[in-house]
């Protein structure tokens, strides 16, 4: 029996400041699941994701709105909200002593639809020295009705010693 969660592409990088993955989104799917399975940053930093336009260029306009709930294991939960950002972003974490210390699933809605905004939900977990484990629930929107074809993952500082991701289409 055919499956309806279809693998599209994996990508990885070592010692890179960012990872851009093109030709991910197409007319074949409306909804995508992006799993970042390793994001070993060189310093404490947030993880950012931006979308690539129809020709594979990063959409850098301040058109991303974000809201996320940080569920911290050592203290009260916190909430953060931002409008007019240049990407979707996560809680800042560190991986100095903890290789691959991240779990990250992002669902992307309607990125290829040129008449629709692009929406995301994210469930993620991080480890940060001094705070311990953190779970994060995140929503975001790119307020630009345009065709998006890929993603760029980057840190707000430093680089990735290692980064790996896989993308699936929900048919």
């Amino acid at each position, binding site marked *: *029996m*055919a*499956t*309806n*969660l*279809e693998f599209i592409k994996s990508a990885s990088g070592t010692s890179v400041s960012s990872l851009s993955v093109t030709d991910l989104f197409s007319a074949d799917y*409306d*909804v995508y699941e992006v799993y970042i399975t390793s994001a070993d940053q060189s310093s404490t930093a947030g993880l950012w994701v931006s979308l690539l336009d129809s020709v594979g260029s990063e959409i850098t306009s301040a058109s991303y*709105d*974000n*809201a*996320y*709930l940080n569920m911290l294991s050592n203290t009260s939960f916190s*909430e953060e*909200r*931002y*409008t007019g950002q240049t990407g979707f972003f996560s809680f800042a974490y560190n991986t100095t002593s903890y290789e691959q210390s991240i779990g990250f699933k992002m*669902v992307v*809605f*309607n990125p290829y*639809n040129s008449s*629709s*905004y692009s*929406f*995301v*939900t994210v*469930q993620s977990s991080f480890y940060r020295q001094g705070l311990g484990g953190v779970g994060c*629930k*995140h*929503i*975001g*929107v790119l*307020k630009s*009705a345009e065709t998006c074809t890929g993603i760029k993952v980057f840190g707000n500082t430093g680089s990735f010693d290692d980064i790996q991701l896989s993308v699936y289409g*929900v*048919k």
Partner: protein
Amino acid sequence: MAGSLIKIDEEIVTSAVASVTLGGSDWDSSYDVYMVKVNNIQTDTDTARFQFRVTTSGTPQTDANYDRATKLLLAHTTFGNVYNVNQTNFDIVGSMGTATGEQSNLVMYCFNFNNASEYSFGTIETVDFGSSARIQGQQGGFVKTTTEANDGLHFYMTTGNFTSGSTFTLYGLKK
């Protein structure tokens, strides 16, 4: 390699319609867990509420036995806790309309729908651009506190219609 996410039913709106049912006569009871994907939901009427009910034998259940608890994430103001018991539906979006960008998207997982001697449960994650041109989303769950078997979900707008392109898809997670 065989996969484990199996499409059961899909409804893509091609002309305005007030409600959509997933499952019902198309329901496949051979799964324990179901995933529902709803995307690009748009409406033709302002200040409409986007809601759902579970179905039994294809009929939406209107009894006051819907409990929910979610965290409401908002980009423009303090987050909210949304909690209700004994409701007659699940409120996905409190107000949406026809302005630029207004849309709702969600992923839901449904549990125990086939068990007539247990309640039905669900988890839900939504992201919307609502009537105030602001992003919001719910993260949480619901329980249908009735010992009944359910065989689908009925989505509707309290006023107006879903417009063309609104897409509803039901999957089973292979055992």
